[in-house]
């Protein structure tokens, strides 16, 4: 059993598991932090961005000034943003049988895999994951396609040139594999390969293993996966949460008795408690708006935003913010808000019961009804007519490199009354802000990550007790910036096995058993013999038939009908015409009685020696040696076959045969 690690990002995993005869890809997350190296794509012509000076080498050589621009001491690539794909060379991806998707954030690389690697298998995911994943992809494509950029930079990727660049471009990894965003066509084609599944549904893969999605409590339709054969179980934990937010709670019980537990997708900000962060978010939002400033919240169109809107629903009246407009701007804003209301079966119990009242499960419906929350596909069109300040705007993309957020950063960045509040933990806010420097607006970092923290993981591991834990290497040591925080790492026994990008791990357990079915007629023919109380044995002669990873013992083919036509009495006579089988022996030889028997049969001068494993009986006169051990008996005599057979028969007297 092997694990191929195609992504080094602990929360955007992409691993391939070879288990029995199957090849299973676990998630295909897309690392978008590469886009931070690029200049933002402004929706409206930005004189500031277009007039940034080109970058030149220390010696004044300016051959890269078209590709690289300098802004407040940082260098950015002036090109269409590109993404860092999972490894495609480590394993032939056309051999992948299935892809299991855990949540909508972990499927963003799907079109790259399904459309360009010869993949012919099936993708399994829950309905909300697919629908919301589609929205995220649609938004991404839309953000990038609606700002066409003629220029494509590739010179800087040359290894010799990259070395000369300043950080972080110099240290960017695998730049040659970075790719532009996929198209909508590719998205549709990729999504068409998905088969929808429900929680706890058992899916047979070629008869070899059974995979089951389990609720993980992190997002709508998010799942962990259990992958099991008859005798082995691998659990894959990705993006789970034990907090009470909108999704169904995490199913922990089904993770028990795993031989291996692959643990990914823990919180990216283990020191920030989501509740405190929500409080911080509200305080800062209120403070800004009360002072007449605007608040910008760069976010994804689904996920935490539902919970934030719910908190604000409770908070705005009490904080006297009822008259402040809240805008949600995304090409998929409408669908996202509506989708969330229809996935009742995937919601937590409280929200499910609301549906039967009937009431919308999320209170953002009421915010929309009362005009407190308005949503628009983009800043163009209706929004520009309705726009009132001060206001709060939720919009993407959290990287601040594309999407409507770029426009608001340009618009509001100059005033210290305004605030940008980062709630998504995927991007370093300082790096995200770099191309907007110098910036007067206030920046608040309140990352809200509801995924498991290390205390919760340690409780979970104690609860489910897997034999082995496998996780990204980042989880096996304290964060580099806080090396004394030994509480911020996985602590389990035996220590977790860690992996890094482009590594192949041999998982630390061997398969020992395989289940074989036995045909009824064959079973009928067996005659078990009780060897010792409770243990019976029978010999089987059969043909092993293997198809679709199922093994069946069938009665052996009948021999050719003898011409004589003798009538058979018993089924057991139906033995194929093969070698006569020697009977199997069992039992032990009592040395004293054996010696007596030898004496009775005329052997004299017998000596017995005890050895570590048994006894040696020496027939000194006959120059013969009988070595009796637990599972073997040897008779050593010099070329006297007669004597050997005699002695053998004496030994056999003490053993049972069947």
């Amino acid at each position, binding site marked *: 059993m092997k694990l191929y690690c195609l992504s080094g990002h602990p929360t955007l995993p992409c691993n391939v598991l070879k288990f029995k005869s199957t090849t299973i890809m676990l998630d295909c997350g897309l690392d978008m932090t590469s886009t931070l190296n690029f200049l933002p794509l402004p929706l409206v012509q930005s004189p500031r961005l277009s007039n940034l000076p080109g970058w030149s080498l220390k010696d004044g050589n300016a051959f890269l000034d078209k590709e690289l621009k300098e802004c407040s001491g940082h260098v950015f690539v002036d090109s269409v943003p590109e993404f860092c794909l999972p490894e495609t060379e480590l394993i032939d991806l056309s051999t992948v049988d299935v892809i299991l998707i855990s949540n909508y954030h972990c499927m963003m690389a799907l079109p790259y895999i399904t459309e360009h690697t010869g993949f012919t298998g099936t993708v399994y995911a829950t309905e909300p994951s697919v629908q919301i994943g589609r929205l995220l992809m649609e938004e991404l494509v839309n953000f990038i396609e609606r700002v066409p950029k003629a220029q494509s930079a590739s010179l800087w990727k040359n290894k010799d040139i990259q070395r000369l660049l300043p950080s972080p471009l110099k240290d960017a990894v695998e730049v040659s594999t970075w790719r532009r965003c996929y198209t909508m066509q590719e998205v549709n084609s990729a999504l068409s390969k998905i088969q929808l599944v429900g929680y706890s549904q058992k899916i047979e893969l070629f008869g070899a293993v059974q995979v089951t999605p389990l609720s993980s409590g992190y997002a709508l339709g998010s799942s962990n996966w259990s992958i099991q054969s008859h005798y082995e179980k691998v659990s894959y934990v990705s993006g789970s949460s034990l907090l009470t937010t909108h999704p169904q709670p995490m199913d922990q019980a089904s993770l028990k008795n795993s031989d291996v537990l692959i643990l990914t997708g823990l919180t990216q900000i283990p*020191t920030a408690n989501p509740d405190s962060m929500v*409080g911080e978010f*509200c*305080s800062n939002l209120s403070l800004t708006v009360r002072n007449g400033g605007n608040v910008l919240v760069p976010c994804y169109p689904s996920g935490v935003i539902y919970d934030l809107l719910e908190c604000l629903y409770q908070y705005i009246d009490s904080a006297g913010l009822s008259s402040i407009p809240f805008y949600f701007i995304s090409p998929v804003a409408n669908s996202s808000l509506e989708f969330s209301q229809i996935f009742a079966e995937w919601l937590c119990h409280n929200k499910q019961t609301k549906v039967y009242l009937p009431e919308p499960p999320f209170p953002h419906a009421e915010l929309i009804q009362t005009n407190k929350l308005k949503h628009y596909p983009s800043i163009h069109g209706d929004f520009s007519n309705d726009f009132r300040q001060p206001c709060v705007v939720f919009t993407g993309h959290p990287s601040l490199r594309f999407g409507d957020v770029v426009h608001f950063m340009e618009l509001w960045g100059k005033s210290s009354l305004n605030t940008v509040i980062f709630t998504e933990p995927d991007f370093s806010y300082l790096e995200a802000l770099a191309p907007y420097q110098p910036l007067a607006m206030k920046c608040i970092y309140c990352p809200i990550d509801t995924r498991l923290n290390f205390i919760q993981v340690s409780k979970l591991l104690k609860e489910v007790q897997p034999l082995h834990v496998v996780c990204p290497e980042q989880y096996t040591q304290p964060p580099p910036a*806080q090396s*004394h925080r*030994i*509480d911020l790492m996985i602590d389990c026994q035996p220590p977790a096995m860690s992996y890094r990008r482009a590594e192949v791990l041999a998982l630390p357990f061997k398969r020992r058993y395989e289940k074989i079915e036995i045909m009824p007629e064959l079973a009928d023919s067996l005659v078990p013999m009780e060897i010792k109380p409770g243990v019976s044995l029978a010999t089987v002669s059969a043909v092993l038939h293997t198809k679709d990873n199922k093994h069946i013992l069938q009665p052996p083919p009948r021999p050719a009908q003898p011409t004589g036509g003798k009538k058979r009495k018993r089924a057991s006579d139906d033995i194929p015409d093969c070698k006569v089988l020697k009977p199997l022996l069992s039992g032990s030889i009592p040395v004293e009685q054996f010696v007596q028997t030898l004496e009775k049969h005329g052997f004299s001068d017998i000596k017995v020696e005890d050895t570590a494993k048994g006894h040696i009986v020496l027939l000194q006169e006959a120059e013969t040696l009988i070595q009796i051990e637990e599972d073997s008996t040897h008779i050593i005599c010099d070329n006297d076959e007669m004597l050997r057979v005699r002695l053998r028969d004496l030994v056999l007297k003490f053993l049972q045969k069947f």
Partner: protein
Amino acid sequence: MDPECSRLLPALCAVLADPRQPVADDTCLEKLLDWFTAVTEAGSSLLLLQENPCLVELLFHVLKSQDLSSRILSFSLRLAGIFAAQENCFQYLQQGELLPMLFGEVGPLGGAAWTAPAVRSGWIQGLRTLAQHPSALHFLAACGAVDTIFSLQGDPSLFVASAAGQLLVHILDLAMRGPAEGRRSLQACDWPACAQKIVGHIEDSLCSTAIPQVTQALSVLTTAFGHCHGLWTQGLWVRLSPLVARLLEKDPVPASHSLVDLLLSVARSAPSSDRGLWETLAQTLSHLSPTQAGPLALGILKLQDCPQVLRTQAFGILLQPLACVLEAAAQAPGPPGLLEGAAGDSMTVDTLLSSKSACVGLLCCALAHLGLLQPLPQRPSPWPQAPLLGAAVTILRLCSGSAAPTSDVGGRLCAILVGCGRVQRAALDFLGALSQGTGPQELVTQVFSVLLEYLVSPESSSMVLKKAFQATLRWLLSSPKTPGCCDLDPHTQLFLTELLPVLQKRLCSPCWEVRDSGLEFLTQMTRHWGGQAGFRQALLASEVPELTKQLLRDPESYVRASAVTATGQLSSWGLCASPECPGAQQESLLVELLHILSTDSEGFPRRAVMQVFTEWLRDGHADVAEDAERFVAGVLQAASRDLDWEVRAQGLELALVFLEQLLGQRGSHCPYAEALPETAPPGVLAQALQVLCRVQLFEFAFRALFDCDRPVAQKSCDLLLFLRAKAAPCGGPQEAGDSPNVASVEATLQRWQAGEQGQPLGYLEPGAVVALLRSVDLEGLRDTLAESSDHVEKSPQSLLQDMLAAVGVLGENEADCY
């Protein structure tokens, strides 16, 4: 006993003895016992029993009856105890063999009723009351009660077990206290048999291997040393201390909590020359685990006379956990830590690292103990202020994760403590307590920086934040003033500029507790520093005053109340006004507070408004002083309609301030001062009365006089008495008293007194007011109000009537049920 009660008593005894009659409740029985105690204390019990034979009959009947409730049985045992406390009455009851039947083996002790804890408790309490004289001791010995008490020490009911222990101490004390006490030697062999028996039992228990037995013995001894002050206790200690010392040889030390209690109890009562005792204490300190030794160390340090060596040892125990933390978190071997020369004790380190709960428990106890010790005069000297500050700061940093210890122990401590709210709260409390002392500037800077870290951190829970605010306030207020300058010192000024943005954010928190503690902090800070230019400047440059005003409309009533107090305080110092149009701002605040007073649905904000208004009036707030008459009229009108009695009472407080401003101070605030308030000159008085009539203060005060809430009525009574004293020279009684106006007002007042308060009083002339003040019996009213509200119903007669009425023995049920 008054005749009426004597008349009712037989019927009551019959009811009590009748199992078919349910007795009202336990409270009635308790009150009845209280009454009998009072009666027997005032006179002869013997006489009481002879005059009321029904009582003895009741006791006999109780013994015979099989199906009486356990409550009645318990009551009877206690009643018999009360009677038998007097020796002659004891003899009287003995003659009838009643006492052995009640308390001996033939009584409830052997029966089914004994299973009820109430009966066992009654039995003990009865004996406890009874055991007051030598005859009682003989009786106890004769009926074998002491053995029963021994067994009751382990009773499943904790009340019974504890009472049994106390009874043993009482008997021991009684036996030892006798006439021979002075002469009695400290040699135990001379002691009376009863005492010998009890002490023997304690000795056996101390040697027992069963921990509950040891605990019982230790707690009996603790009570004995705590409550008995005879010389004999010294003898007892001489006899038992070797056994107690032997407990220390066991590992772990059994019943360590009780042992600590005992040793402290002995130490408090023993003479300071007892070297053996100090040795035992020192030995105990070194034998107990760090967690167990903490309370003993604190107790030792609180003792008045105690050898210095022992005090040093005890202080070392308290400091040990903090010393370990300091050592573990130190980046490099720095200056000498808390305990010179002594590295972190390995046992303490082991405890700290053994588990989260042990670590948290030990640190919290150490911090709390040191915090308690800090303000005491007998605290150890020199007090290691600087290392303690360092330790508190380090612990807070470990808890917030901002410390970066390099040692292995430090790393593990950090992992245990990070995010631990309990330790954070304890450390902040301790840090606040340390503000009473000084420290090197570098450390003080660290203190402010860690406090700011906590105030800023989103991870601080609301309780931690509250403590952080409190500690910050204490440190700010204790910060030194620059010599020769009345303004804040530069460090504090700098801190303020960092603090105010944080406060601003906290005032916007979605958690109401946080907003509330932020406002409280602001109020306190303004109260102390409202006049400091630096503070004023920083505050006015921030959004804090504006945000505070916005919180007057907060959905949470506690926050509204705090916002009212804070804005009131800010306004008093002229910190509410925006520079552009100060007048308009202020007026709107007054209007806004009046609006809250008349419309807020919750009591807290309205009470706060009344307090602010009273303060404003007292301090001569500019906007109030402008037209105080209109202000008072408006406030009193709003307060008079208020449903909350505290608002009405505060209204009277405000009225009194107004009166004092018009007529001069009350002579003395001391209620026992004999001097009456000085009378006001007639001219001033006449004018003042005119004003008071115009603001309708009298309507408010007279209405309050008949308020259904007693404190309001009392306050009003005091106010009117004060006014009457001031108005003494104003005209003769008959001048206005006969006018029709006064008569109708008196009629209205009578109706008000009867509860019909609908009708208004109408406008009163000053003359009519003076007449009214004289005609109303204010002194009488004051005396009535001074009685507790149930004084009528508290009489024993009423009690007996109630109990009888409850079972329908009395014809009509007239009595109040309570």
